[in-house]
Structure formats: structure tokens, C-alpha cells
């Protein structure tokens, strides 16, 4: 249908819609009233409740530990200069390339390399204390796949970027929710409860989420 016809039809319909007490103006930014807490403490408490593992030691130590613990031999990463507190990327395991071909050809072949990807290393540009959530944005040197396909995801979060809740973050000028083609809020590892409401971890996304607070 033509856009103008479609919109005209909607306009006619909404003129006779019965919508009790609708506000004439956009209700505007709303931020919930929540008790004052220490943001870092609250974030750790909630993120752990969501089955994430929290670390407060240097990033390089966490990565070494993770590589040993899960016997990692390949990984995807953001560029090192995009991650706060990271000196250099690990040199033991093989780094999987993320520059995905454009167009019809080559994409499936490229994607096949993600099949058994074990570790992903990314930054996190914000967090919500109340829900234990991190915010991960895509961009140059910040591929989406790094937080998505590996079995283990290590995210590095600067402590001053912890907000009280999603709405507190959205109200902050730094939020820029539409900048970068993809922004994702991550609350714990991938999970499902589709079979008999029994929670199992690691469906399509990572099974283990490690957050390093720096």
C-alpha cells in the first residue's frame, strides 16, 4: 500500500478511537524513584543473581584465568584500544577475524568460522545496577559477534559507568541509544525455560558471562 494511503487510513481510524484518558502530549522522560544505594555493590549483587560472574581484579588476569579454566584455543575480540583497562589481547589462542564480506558471496564461508567459537572479549559502555545489566554497543572495532557467538563472554565495565536503572541511563545525555547500528542490553548469560519452565543456560548466546569491573 502507498504510505500516504496507509497513514490516511490510520488518521481516520484514530479520529474515532475511544481511548480513555490518553494524555495529549508525550508523557516525557520518566525515572523511577529508588532508594539510594552504592551502585557498584548493587550492580554486583544483581548481576550475580542473574548468573553472571563478577571480577574486580585486572582484566589481563581475568582473561588468563578464563583461558585456563575453559581450555580456550580461539576467540573473537573488540580491538584492544576499544576496551578500557586492557593492555593487549591474548597471544596464545587464535583470534577469529570479524571483517564480514558484504554482498551475496563469501558470507556463509566467513560465518562458518564462528561455529565453535569459545571466547569473546568486549567492552561495556554502561550498566544498570537495579537489573545487573550491561550495555554493549557495536561500531568500528566493536563487532557484534564478540558478545554473541562464543561460549564464554568477558566484558570490561568501567565502574563510573554504572547507572541506577535503564531509565536513569536513557535520561543521561551519554546514552545515545540510536548511535551505532546495534546496542544490546545484556542481563546474564543466554538462557531458556521453554521446556517445562526449567532454566538452562547457553542457548544461542554465551553460556558463561564474566564482567570485569575496572
Amino acid at each position, binding site marked *: *500500500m502507498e*504510505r500516504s494511503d*496507509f*497513514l*490516511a*487510513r*490510520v*488518521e*481516520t481510524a*484514530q479520529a474515532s*478511537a*475511544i*481511548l480513555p484518558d*490518553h*494524555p495529549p502530549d*508525550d*508523557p516525557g*522522560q*520518566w525515572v523511577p*524513584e529508588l532508594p539510594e544505594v552504592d551502585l557498584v555493590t548493587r550492580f554486583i549483587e544483581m548481576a550475580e543473581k*542473574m548468573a553472571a560472574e563478577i571480577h574486580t581484579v585486572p582484566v589481563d588476569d581475568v582473561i588468563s584465568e578464563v583461558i585456563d579454566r575453559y581450555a580456550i584455543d580461539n576467540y573473537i575480540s573488540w580491538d584492544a584500544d576499544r576496551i578500557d583497562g586492557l593492555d593487549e589481547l591474548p597471544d596464545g589462542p587464535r583470534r577469529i577475524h570479524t571483517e*564480514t564480506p*558484504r*554482498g*551475496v558471496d563469501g558470507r*556463509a564461508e566467513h560465518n*562458518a568460522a*564462528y*561455529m565453535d567459537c569459545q571466547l569473546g572479549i568486549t567492552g561495556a559502555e554502561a550498566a*544498570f545496577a*537495579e537489573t545487573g545489566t550491561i550495555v554493549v554497543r*557495536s*561500531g568500528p572495532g566493536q*563487532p*557484534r*559477534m564478540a558478545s554473541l*557467538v562464543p561460549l564464554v563472554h568477558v566484558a570490561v565495565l568501567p565502574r563510573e559507568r554504572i547507572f541506577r536503572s535503564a*531509565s536513569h*541511563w536513557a535520561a543521561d545525555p551519554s*546514552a545515545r*541509544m*540510536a*548511535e*551505532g*547500528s*546495534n546496542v*544490546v*542490553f545484556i*542481563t*546474564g548469560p*543466554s538462557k*531458556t525455560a*521453554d*521446556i*517445562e*519452565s526449567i532454566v538452562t543456560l*547457553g*542457548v*544461542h*548466546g554465551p553460556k558463561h558471562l564474566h564482567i570485569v569491573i575496572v
Partner: protein
Amino acid sequence: MTPVTFRERSTRELGTEKVVNIGKATRRKTRDRISASAAYPPMESMRDRAREIRLHTLANLSDYLAQFADSVERAGGHVYFAADADEANRYVSQVAADRGVRSVVKSKSMVTEEIELNHHLESHGLDVVETDLGEFIVQISGDRPVHIISPVMHKDRYEVAELFADVLDMDYSNDPVDLNAAARQHLRSIFLGADMGISGVNFGVADTGTISTVTNEGNARLTTTAPRIHVAIMGMERLVPNAGDLTVMLEVLARSGTGQALTVYTNLITGPRAYDEQDGPDELHVVILDNGRSEALASSSAEILACIRCGACLNVCPVFREAGGHAYGSVYPGPIGAVLTPALFGHDEWGDLPFASSLCGACKDACPIRIDIPSLLLEQRTESMSKGGGDFAWLGPGLAAYRRIATNPVLWRGFLVAGGVFGKATGEWITRLPFQAGNWTTTRDLPAPADQSFHSWWKEHRG
């Protein structure tokens, strides 16, 4: 009138193991929702705010739609306005044909169930695979989703285990961890090789053209990242004005739908992959669907379009708990479906659904947007009756006859005698009335009249 009525469908479902499973799962979900809300003091004021946002958006929908479409295009996406299911389906298959698409992955989306997109694409020779674990199980078992959030809440692990042992390359196991691992492995290679990913939209943000999808598994993220083309299908009412409104809706949705503080993955997409980004789809298409929504918006049930598809009303509904989702015959079951289905698709086929309710009001209490579902059910019943009434056509003349009898002492006494002779009583309840009045007692019992009528008691004591 529909060839198969709610009454016939629900009769088939009642008492089966399937609805016992549904009863258990809905009760658990309701407990989770209540404790998640109780754990979050601002929940009640957040619900008020969510309601304001939704109603304001609906009242100004054409402006927000225009703004949204402009924003999507500015971000590099294509927008298509589809008047109905047919237009939406044809647009998607045309995009696929033009770009040499062979394989399609889908993340869970009720709107694509509504338009039967899978069927359409398969008839055009495309391979379509559902990637949400529940929807995948639905697809390989040739079933239909039983609930808008939990499509396989009617199946137990043993049924899934047998299905997977049969269809997937795995040894029999009924451990959900093993079943999940087998599905992950199987779907992973399909994801990575697919040409097109199709998702729904939980909310579109008008001022930025951002579309959001929420999943716990990550299937919507893979669907919108791995293939070169992303097609998002959105019911036209699913907009919010801006990012601040979005976070309110997301928190309300998660706490009401699954009792989570926030869903594991909230995926915000603004346009396709940028020129300097390493991955993501080359193309983004957003299909905005009417398919009966403008008629619903113009009707006395416009408020139903404020629904955010959390499923809370299904979980508390005594009818849904006993009859299950398939009894409704619609992709949208439960209280919300009993209003939405006839409002979108007409009363000729769906006019009996609004009667599938005791009007107890549990749905209104549970609805995060505080939609007055019981009143809307009554609006839809009125609409059904004005169009002939279908399965309930007897109700109008029946009540008129009852009024005539009940207001005439002679007729009333005769009615009671006839009821005693031809009807059937069990203890203090009349379980069957005779003749046409039997329609009333097919689904309910009446209290039996006292041995002595008030009339004669009055004569004895007062006279």
C-alpha cells in the same frame, strides 16, 4: 459462523495432559510475575506511566508512524507499509527473490504467525527455520504455539526428547540441558549459513527509527546479525515516541511476562550495518502491518491495541488455564486474544471468542497497561450479537423469553414445574434445563429452587 466453535475446540482440550501442563506453567508464571513486581517498589507507578505512553501513542499513531518511517529511512533502512497479510507476505518473498535468498532463519514473532509467513515463503521454495527453542519444537512437530510467550508450555520434556531423538542427530535424553545443547548445535550452522533473518518488533522508537527485540536465548540477535538481509515485521501499533519511553516499556514487559527484572537480551537496531562496521546485515527492511488494526483502532475496542504481548493475562485466566491456548483457534489466545481476534479478523469467524470468559477481572489486574479487558470483552460480545451472534444466536431470544416468563407468575410456576419434570437436578444444582433453555445449562449449573416458593411463604407468614 466458524465451522469449529470455541465450545467444540475446548471440549476436545479439557482434562487432557496438555492442559494440565498449561495449568502448572501458568501458575508458576503468575507467581514469578507477582514476586518480581513486589520486589520493585516503583512497579505500580511505572505501570501508570506505561499506560499513558501507550494510549498517547495510539491517539497520535499516524504522526508517530510517519516519524518512525522517516527515521528508519534516515538510518538506511527500507520501509514498506502493508495493508494486510497478503501484501506483507508478498513483499518479503519479493525481496527474497530479488536478492537470491534461499535460506531464511526466523526469531520468535507472533505477527509472522498471524500472517502465516512461513507457509507463504515455503510455497515460494524457501527453507524457513524457526530458531527460538520453543518455536523450533513447534515447527518440527507440526504443532501450533499454545501461548504467545511460551509456545510449548503444553509439552513435557519426554515428548520433546522423543521428537529430538527422531529429528536431530542425538541419542535419546530427556534432560533439558542435553536437549538445549542439541538444538544449539543444530541451529547454529543454519544461522551461520542463512541469507535472510526475519524478526518481529517488540517496540519501534518513533524519533530514532530504532527497533527493539527482546529474547532470553539470543535468537533475535543471531537472526539480525548473521544473515546479510534483515526483515523486521511490525504491527503498526507497536511504537513508542522516544528512548525514554522505551526503557519504561522494556522493564514493564519483562517483569510482567516472565517475572524477570529485564529480559537477557534487549536488542536495539538502528539501520543496517554502517560502512565502518565489521558485521551485521547489509540491508534492513521494516514491514509495517495494518491487517485489521485500523478497523480495531476505529472501534470501541481501540484500547486493546495498547497491548504489549506480555502474556500475563493468559497466565491468570481461569478459562485459559483449563482450556489452553489451542481452544481459541487463534494465534492470539486468552483474554487479550478473545478481544483482539474478533477485533482484527471479524466476528463472522471469531464472534464466539469474547464469550470464552467468566468476566472475573483477573486479566485487568494482571495487565501491566491496565487495559480494561472485561469491558472490552463486553464490547466485543455486543458486536458479535449485533452481527447475528453465531454460536450464541440463541442468547438474545432466549433471554427475551426468560424475561417474559420470569415476570409473569403463572408462566413462572409452569416453568418451574416443567423444569422439575424435564430437567435434571443433582443435589442443590440444576445441571440440565429442558428444551431451548438447555443452551444455558450446557456450560453452567443453576441453583435449584427452594422447596417452598417465596410466594407461598409470604402467604403463610404475612397473610
